[in-house]
């Protein structure tokens, strides 16, 4: 059954779109990630214009992170003060991101930006995850356990210190604002939530307790993804509500199955699988950039 997308102005098979939402939802439930970094490339492979893929994924992330943040909130695992400060940075970041997105779109370079950005992003994240999971798996096998040392880093030398009770931290507001800003730019440029950047940054840079990191990052992502959605709607007219609706429904159902599947697999194996998946998507996009195009010409409606 074909369905016509009013904003993308093309017709798609709604079951395929539902399936894509479901598959990404499954993976995000399984690995505990937002899945935006998989959904945007997937939509592009299906033929959705990159600008519509990025902007529509932002609305999908709004929905999935709302569900995630609510679940974490029930477990009291959200630091609202830390999250709020990151949101402030994130909103400025998404303004900057959407502004840059518009310039590149008019210059005809949005495909390069999205593909190139994803190659770097997925390559880095996938490489780090692969490295870590392989090391943990081999370390387990040889019986070595690593001990983490907790020491002060340069972040503690910055001014404007504030106390964060839930995080049990007394640090400057500058790092959370900067991290929030960076994730905001990333979110609106690439159509990702940015959890895979936020979570490591909160654990390793801010040294927040692991149990509240997930909830706080989801809380921040809800607002930044919502802001990106609205800004893309106003600036680029590229949010397709019909596409978003189908993806959200598929994603919500898929995520439930993903959570159940995750219970049957071990954490390290999961992370290895995830790393391979991330690298595969990155490799596919990289191939698209370096392989000689079958037709070097492309046609776009409108003037640059």
């Amino acid at each position, binding site marked *: *059954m*074909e*369905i*016509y997308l*009013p*904003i993308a*102005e*093309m*017709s798609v098979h709604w079951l395929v779109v539902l399936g894509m939402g479901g598959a990404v939802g499954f993976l995000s439930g399984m690995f505990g990630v937002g899945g935006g970094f998989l959904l945007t490339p997937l939509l592009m492979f299906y033929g959705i214009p990159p600008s519509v893929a990025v902007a529509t994924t932002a*609305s*999908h992330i*709004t*929905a*999935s*992170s*709302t*569900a*995630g943040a*609510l*679940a974490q909130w029930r477990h009291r695992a959200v630091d609202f003060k830390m999250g709020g400060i990151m949101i402030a940075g994130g909103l400025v970041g998404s303004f900057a991101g959407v502004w840059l997105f518009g310039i590149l779109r008019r210059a*005809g*370079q949005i*495909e*390069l930006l999205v593909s*190139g950005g994803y190659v770097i992003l997925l390559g880095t994240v996938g490489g780090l995850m692969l490295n870590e999971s392989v090391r943990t798996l081999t370390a387990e096998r040889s019986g070595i356990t690593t001990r983490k040392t907790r020491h002060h880093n340069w972040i503690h030398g910055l001014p404007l210190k504030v106390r964060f009770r839930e995080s049990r931290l007394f640090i400057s507001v500058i790092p959370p604002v900067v991290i929030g800003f960076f994730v905001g730019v990333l979110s609106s440029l690439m159509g990702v939530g940015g959890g895979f950047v936020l979570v490591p940054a909160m654990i390793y840079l801010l040294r927040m307790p692991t149990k509240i990191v997930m909830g706080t990052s989801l809380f921040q992502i*809800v607002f930044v993804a*919502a802001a990106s*959605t*609205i*800004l*893309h*709607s*106003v600036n680029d*007219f590229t*949010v397709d*509500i*019909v596409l*978003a*609706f189908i993806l*959200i*429904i598929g994603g*919500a159902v898929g*995520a*439930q199955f993903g959570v159940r599947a995750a219970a049957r697999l071990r954490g390290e194996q999961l992370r290895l699988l995830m790393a391979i998946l991330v690298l595969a998507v990155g490799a596919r996009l990289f191939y698209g*950039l*370096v*392989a*000689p*195009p079958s*037709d*070097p*010409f*492309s*046609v*776009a*409606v*409108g*003037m*640059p």
Partner: protein
Amino acid sequence: MKTRFALVIAALLAACSPAQGEDLVSGLSQDVIQITSNYTGTDIVVFGAIENRSVLAPNPADIVVLVRGPDVDMTVRKKERVAGIWLNNHGVVMEGVPAFYFLASTRPLNEIASKATLARYGIALENLEPRADSARTAAIAEPYVRALVRHKTLEGLYNENIAGVEFLSPALFRTRVPVPASVVRGQYNAQVFLFRDGAVVSAQSTPLFVDQTGLERRLFNFAHLQPLSYGIFTVLMATLLGWASSFFFRRNA
């Protein structure tokens, strides 16, 4: 006596100049195409008849059917290899290019009329030209123009169908115009030309409208006319669905 003479003269005149009085009547199978949620493309039929057809004419009449979509600006870009990566260059801008172009005729165009005549009526795709101030000479722009036609032909938006006009009787003709799913909204024009001996004897033009309808139209207008409300509405929908899924599945678990 005098009137009878006049009648005979008139009859003789009519017989001697066969083209005179020949006229066209044409119509469309539908004059509005509605894009609905399950729209996957459609066919329209352009049909017509030659009135007062002169049986004595030595050559057969030729029909050319031209359906043109709304004029838009298009940018054609070419990928070039920079440091191992294929990048889009600045490209060539073309102004007033038809978004949809369908042409059908009874014979190859060069047998129907001269290039100059065809160009005067905007018949044949080779009459597309890039914008003058895109700072490229026609020679450089030429492959870009060909790429545009090639792309649009692949998408089914450009179509030159020689011998696509079918005669049902010596006077009655029709042609089928495939309209793909990717057509843009706007006013289209279906023109029918009657050629005889390399010149246009009669022409008729009928407008055709392509429009989104129902929910699709409302969503499109909402997104373009009130983008801020549309964005907020989308976010509300997303958060509600997110909340609903967490609520629903928590009770299930």
